[in-house]
């Protein structure tokens, strides 16, 4: 039986499809026993769906750094 902390980490890995087969089985088993974790997992999955739906964009760190330098030059 794994701890809730461990289950949470595996759940997060699963959100990015990086959990191994063994981990997934452990997680399933834990969720079967633990109501709190299964609720948290549901929310976590919801967050993933939301992020996908929102079609987020972001600038990379280099791009932001360049922006900062440009702004500094301006001062």
């Amino acid at each position: 039986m794994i701890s809730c902390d461990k289950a949470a980490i595996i759940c997060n890995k699963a959100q990015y499809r990086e959990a191994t087969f063994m981990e997934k089985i452990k997680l399933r088993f834990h969720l079967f026993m633990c109501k709190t974790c299964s609720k948290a997992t549901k929310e976590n999955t919801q967050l993933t769906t939301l992020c996908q739906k929102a079609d987020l964009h972001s600038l990379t760190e280099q791009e932001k750094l360049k922006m900062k330098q440009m702004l500094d030059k301006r001062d």
Partner: protein
Amino acid sequence: MAALNYIPGNEKKLKVIKSNSITFEDDTIRMAEHQLKPEKWVDLYADYLFNYAIGRISDAEVAKDLVQETFMAGLKSAKNYKGDAAERTWLIAILKRKVIDHYRKINSKKGKAEVRMNYSSQTDAEGDWLEEQVADPFSSFENSNIENEELGLAIQSCIAKLPKKQALVFTMKTIQGVSTEDICNELDINPSNLWVMIHRARTALMDCLNQNWF
């Protein structure tokens, strides 16, 4: 829509400007609630503004330039900032102008912009039935598009509230889709460290969205 902050015993006359902002007639009691902190702009608002811009201009390169120009313009006119709008709102207002200017510019480059006043794009349609052109109120497409953009901005503003490192790891992983290995190399952390950070970020984000979105 306008939220009235009624202060009991304070009988100052209220003046309504543009129906959604209310100021007191004499400025003595108005405090400058907001201040500009240009050195934090890029970290706090770059992604938010970028998302906003890309919703209107699908070219990422142009959107990036517009965000950059917005920051520049913001710096230039920082002394005109009165402090009654939040920093981000103020920047968005500038960006809005930049987007409009952009479309104006590309239109003038084409020479004379052609304006055709046909209300129907289907020229081969029989008859001119206006009923055919009415938007379908049950179409979920437009509504969900608008909603998704707002959702994106909500998520972005929640990410901005996270601690710097968590926000960085979360955006790299979720939005840019960088692999775990690469993030670890770049930021010099080990994978279990990364997953703990992801976990904290996701928990905080879910809390934030529960307050602001649902």
